[in-house]
């Protein structure tokens, strides 16, 4: 489980994240949602240690990440997998080398063991026959899947995804969401996903944190998000015409 306690992050005198507290349980997809610029990426980067919060604490299974020194954090970093918005695959490495990279860097496995692990990870994300291709030679959806394969290569306890299905067609986006949920369950990971895609929320949002202007605005799950009476959340959800129509049909509201 990951816990954030009263996290605040200030840039140039303006708080991008204000006093947010939340628990992200393991074995389920935890979503952070909000408009663009609401502070969800800043919060995720604070959790990852890419930004140092100005106040508050982050705990990984009770271990205080914020109080750790750089060397101590490396232990926890070995337990993390991250999928960035654009995939962030290393351009100069092939698909296979990308997935193999964390294994080369942090393990003492033999070459055959590493090859097996790479194959296992690529099969799990349904990538076949692309091992020798470079990131520029594969589609955006495949890049995301390779990024997921690389993220799970070291069998992480914590998986982070920053808008994993942005820029993808609805079908591929659904596949990516399903894949993340499946891996979360299979490997019992604590997964945190940043998104502003309502389809993802409805599909995999077992726990949802809604952030507005850097503040925690609502907390719930996919079961109750559509029935929330939070006005700001409603505006966010029903900005999507499809969901607005669904609500009209359900409630008879015009």
């Amino acid at each position, binding site marked *: 489980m990951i816990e954030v306690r009263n996290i605040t992050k200030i840039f140039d005198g303006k708080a991008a994240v204000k006093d947010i507290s939340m628990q992200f349980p393991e074995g389920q997809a935890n979503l952070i949602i909000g408009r663009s610029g609401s502070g969800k990426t800043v919060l995720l980067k604070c959790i*990852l*240690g*890419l930004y140092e919060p100005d106040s508050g604490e982050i705990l990984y299974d009770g271990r205080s990440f914020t109080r750790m020194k750089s060397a101590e*954090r*490396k232990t926890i*970093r*070995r337990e*993390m997998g*991250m999928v*960035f*918005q*654009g995939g*962030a*695959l*290393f*351009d100069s490495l092939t698909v296979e080398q990308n997935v193999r990279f*964390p294994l*080369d*860097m*942090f393990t003492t496995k033999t070459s055959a063991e590493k090859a097996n692990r790479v194959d296992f990870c690529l099969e799990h994300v349904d990538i076949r026959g692309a091992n020798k291709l470079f990131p520029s030679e594969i589609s955006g959806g495949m890049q995301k899947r390779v990024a997921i394969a690389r993220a799970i290569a070291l069998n992480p306890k914590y998986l*982070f995804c920053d808008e994993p299905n942005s820029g993808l067609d609805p079908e591929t986006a659904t596949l990516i969401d399903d894949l993340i949920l499946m891996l979360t369950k299979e490997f019992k990971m604590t997964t945190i996903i940043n998104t502003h895609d309502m389809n993802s929320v409805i599909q995999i949002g077992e726990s949802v944190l809604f952030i507005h202007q850097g503040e925690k605005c609502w907390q719930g799950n996919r079961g109750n998000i559509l029935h929330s009476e939070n006005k700001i959340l409603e505006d966010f959800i029903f900005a999507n015409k499809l969901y607005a129509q669904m609500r009209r049909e359900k409630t008879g509201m015009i």
Partner: protein
Amino acid sequence: MDWLFHVGRYFWMLGKTFSRPEKFKMFVRQLFHEIEGLGVNSVGIVVIISLFIGGILTIQLAYNLMNPLLPVYLIGLGTRDTLILEFSSTILALILAGKIGSNITSEIGSMKVTEQIDTLEVMGVNSISYLILPKIVAVVFIFPFLVILSIFFGLLGGLIVGPFTGVVSLTDYIDGIRYLFVPYYVTFTLIKSVFFGFLVASVPAYYGYFVQGGALEVGKASTKAVVNTNILILLFDLVLTRLLLTA
């Protein structure tokens, strides 16, 4: 006072760069990759430029030394000393700052804006050391070889162009390049090349690593990196020449 911030951050970066590599095997692999990419791939341009400059220097010296009182072999001597003392180290470094420097800035800068560097950091890799150390070591290692290559091909350029254009005979040119040879000049130029190699790799790496924004900013950072590397090369040239030749 903005420059003071950059100087401070540059030295902070160097401190992180020269920490122990995460995994030595990976460092060696990267090092060979960089030696090939940044060094071996620069051999072609070094050879072409040096051949032409050697030839041009020979013709210009012949034009300037058109005096019956001056021996013709001075053309060879002048070409040799100009190549060794200045062209093959300093001018070549300025040219390679453009080629290698912009390559380093754009590579690291692109990695930065596409979050590849963040990926390394999340994994727990010291991204500065992993990306920059092999580049610095590779360029510092390869620069003296490129300088020696440049001297050789510069002299060869003069050897071809001089007799071909009739401004100096083959015998006079060879006599000239052998006359009053000072081996220390070679030592001097090799010392300079080590400093210049360090600047050509580290300054552009700095601009690439700390770029913020998108592709446009990476382009701007490349330009800044090349301009500032050139200025620093000239500054170091001045200081090293004063210290090593006239002090």
